[in-house]
């Protein structure tokens, strides 16, 4: 069964190749390629998850501005923190041009931690669509003055301030590790309390933890309501929402940290399909709908097509270091 599948897909590949050559010779190298039928966008988690939201937001902008002419279905394949969807891409969709996967940081961390046999190297990077930045905050009535003060206290006694964030290897956990590790602190000595992402705000407001790291979007409303004091943000520049809040880098810790969200294709995805999607997503991020959605979800503009693979390699090194320094990842 597997053999027939493989040989038929190989045959299909052959046909595609022949067709590509024919088309290329007929129309010249810049031939317009487009998917022939329905296209699937896979999301490695259920409806309403971050991946699902990203895919549907992009689709929304594409539909509203008629960027695409063919139907797209978002297919949810939950399981293994996205590992099941990645495995399906690698094992069942090799060489295909009509299925792509929405992904983010776990693509990198799952591979490093060994919870997924496949990583970004097994797939075809297409685009980075947007990024999420993080905010270090304390309760409004905290006596911690600013980010420098926080670091100074932690340097004196790493256990003097309890810090909340997500559990490893989630993005906001990694943000915290990057920030405090970057400040030269031994992160394994910190009193770091991991929560389900959404519960971090409640824990900080309730005074159970003294500082926290979470996405800018999730903390923004509490800062605006005067319940939290923002100390620093992790993006390369100050946040549009919080022009008065310095970045971590400005505060003397040379770290820029973001989570990225983007799309990858199956291994051996045809070049024309890759170029096609890069172009379509490039058009999408310029639309007004996408701008609005980005603002709504507090996603930073971080579109990248060429060089996305280099970025992933860099991200892979960064995450390996973070995980190793945090003592989460001990193997190798």
């Amino acid at each position, binding site marked *: 069964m597997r053999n027939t599948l493989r040989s038929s897909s190989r045959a299909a590949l052959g046909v595609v190749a022949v067709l590509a050559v024919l088309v290329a010779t007929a129309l010249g190298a810049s031939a317009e390629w487009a998917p022939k039928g329905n296209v699937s966008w896979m999301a490695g988690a*259920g409806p*309403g998850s971050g991946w699902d*939201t990203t895919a549907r937001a992009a689709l929304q902008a594409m539909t509203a501005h008629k960027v695409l002419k063919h139907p797209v279905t978002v297919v949810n394949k*939950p399981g*293994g923190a996205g590992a099941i969807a990645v495995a399906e891409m690698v094992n069942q969709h090799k060489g295909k041009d009509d299925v792509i996967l929405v992904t983010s940081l776990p693509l990198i961390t799952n591979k490093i931690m060994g919870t997924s046999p496949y990583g970004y190297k097994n797939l075809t990077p297409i685009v980075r669509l947007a990024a999420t930045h993080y905010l270090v905050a304390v309760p409004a009535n905290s006596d911690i003055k600013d980010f420098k003060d926080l670091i100074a206290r932690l340097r004196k006694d790493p256990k003097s301030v309890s810090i909340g964030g997500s559990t490893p290897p989630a993005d906001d956990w990694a943000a915290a590790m990057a920030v405090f590790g970057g400040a030269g602190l031994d992160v394994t000595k910190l*009193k770091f309390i991991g929560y*389900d992402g959404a519960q971090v705000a*409640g824990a900080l407001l*309730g005074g159970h933890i003294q500082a926290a790291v979470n996405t800018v979007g999730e903390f923004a409303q509490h800062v605006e309501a005067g319940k939290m004091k923002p100390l620093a943000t992790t993006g390369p520049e100050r946040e549009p929402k919080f022009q008065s809040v310095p970045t971590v880098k400005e505060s003397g810790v040379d770290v820029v940290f973001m989570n990225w969200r983007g799309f990858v294709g199956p291994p051996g995805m045809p070049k024309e399909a890759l170029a096609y999607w890069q172009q379509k997503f490039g058009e999408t991020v310029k639309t007004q709908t996408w701008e609005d959605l980005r603002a709504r979800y507090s996603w930073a503009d971080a579109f990248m097509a060429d060089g996305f693979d280099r970025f992933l390699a860099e991200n892979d090194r960064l995450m390996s270091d973070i995980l190793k320094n945090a003592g989460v990842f001990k193997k190798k």
Partner: protein
Amino acid sequence: MTDFFANLVTGFGIAVTPMNLVYAFIGCLVGTLIGVLPGIGSVTTVALLIPITFGMNPTSGLILMAGVYYGAMYGGSTTSILANIPGESSAVVTTLDGHPMAKQGRAGAALATAAIGSFVAGTIATAGLMFLAPSLASVAIRFGPAEYFSLMLLGLTAVSALGGRSVVKSLISMCLGLLLGTVGLDMGGFPRFNFGVVELYEGVDFIIPAIGLFAFGEALDQAAVVRRKQMTHFEFKGRAWLTREEFRKSTAPWLRGSVLGFLVGVLPGAGATIASFFSYALERRMSRHPEEFGKGAIEGVAGPEAANNASVGGAMVPLLTLGIPGSGTTAILLGAFMMFGLQPGPLLFQKNPDVIWALIASMYIGNVMLLVLNLPLIRLFVKLIDVRPAVLVAAVLVLSTVGVYATNGRTFDLWLALGFGVLGYLARRADFPPAPLILALVLERSMEDNFRRATTLSDGSLTIFVSRPISAAILVLCVLSLFSPYLQSWFLSRRSARGEPAIGRS
């Protein structure tokens, strides 16, 4: 206060526009249906509605989604009662007495008490949300890791109310549930006890053992005897309504369940399932005839069904006032709010009062709609089980299988559920109660995570659980809960030893 009612009037003004009434109705109807179908929960349905509601007026969209949410709580009891299939996680407890009631021909009464209880609870919880939201939210965030751990421990003591005759068997069932709860990614980010099976990375979705142990177990049990003896044909006796006696017995549990469910719902991370288990344990404790529980006590249906519905209103409190989702469905609703450009949290009541008050008004309207919708449906539902037992068993198997598959869309889950079915069958034969396993499975993760958080905060010292007043108070309740039956019988025996009448003195 005048402001308050002015707001509510404005809210009703928006909610009763024909278009919004239609959306509320559609939401309630869809919610009831998916509640009836096992496996497809309110989380998935609300999530699927998000892209559909885009472009809709935010108020209408939220009214639709909220309708689905509490509609599902209404519908969840139906299959629990009729076929022993828990349609929603929060309806597991409803099977304990609801299904025995159906077997006795009292399905109509069970469904009616569930529907009316849900209505009472929905109304009370909405009122609670309206009047108490800001003050309750500030209390809720004072629950830290130590308090949550103690609360989950208190939840575990409910096991003593769920079991059959043997305490040891209940405890064994509970321990199995705790062990099962440790499967999957732990707080450190590594999978535990998954034996390399990718499908187990995220743990066992407890709807699978719930359907396996209850529905499959029951079906196998029936199938095993189908040729040997005349099967009990579910006969439907009486009316699809409550007798005066049943109504009287249900009233207190409805009210207690409503208050309890609302309060538990307010705590982020506790939720409908725990609320329903708590309510069941409470009703059994309060009852003058606890031995009837598990054999068709109407209080065992009335209380939990009220509690799980009230928890919906409770879960809205931290969502709307703090932007913190307390349950799976409210997490999705948070996403929906954001899609509409609304940020739930401290500023929502000031920035978008019209949306909030219309949503609250729609919850009142939705509750009435659900009652009107559900009571006539009872007549229809009770006819469904009036078929040949063999046919019914087959239908239960089909429905359960679809339900399990619908949860994650994986065949692996079907094998798992079948495995639990066999376990459920054996457990039934050996008189092991399956409910403690489900309860422990639900509580384990939160219990463990909060224990780890609390002890990290306290540098490993266990005194944090008793030095914090709320946590200490809950622990005292745990002790009382565990020993109350013994204390009670000790008091009674002392009284009778002294020749005093044991009961009826007050």
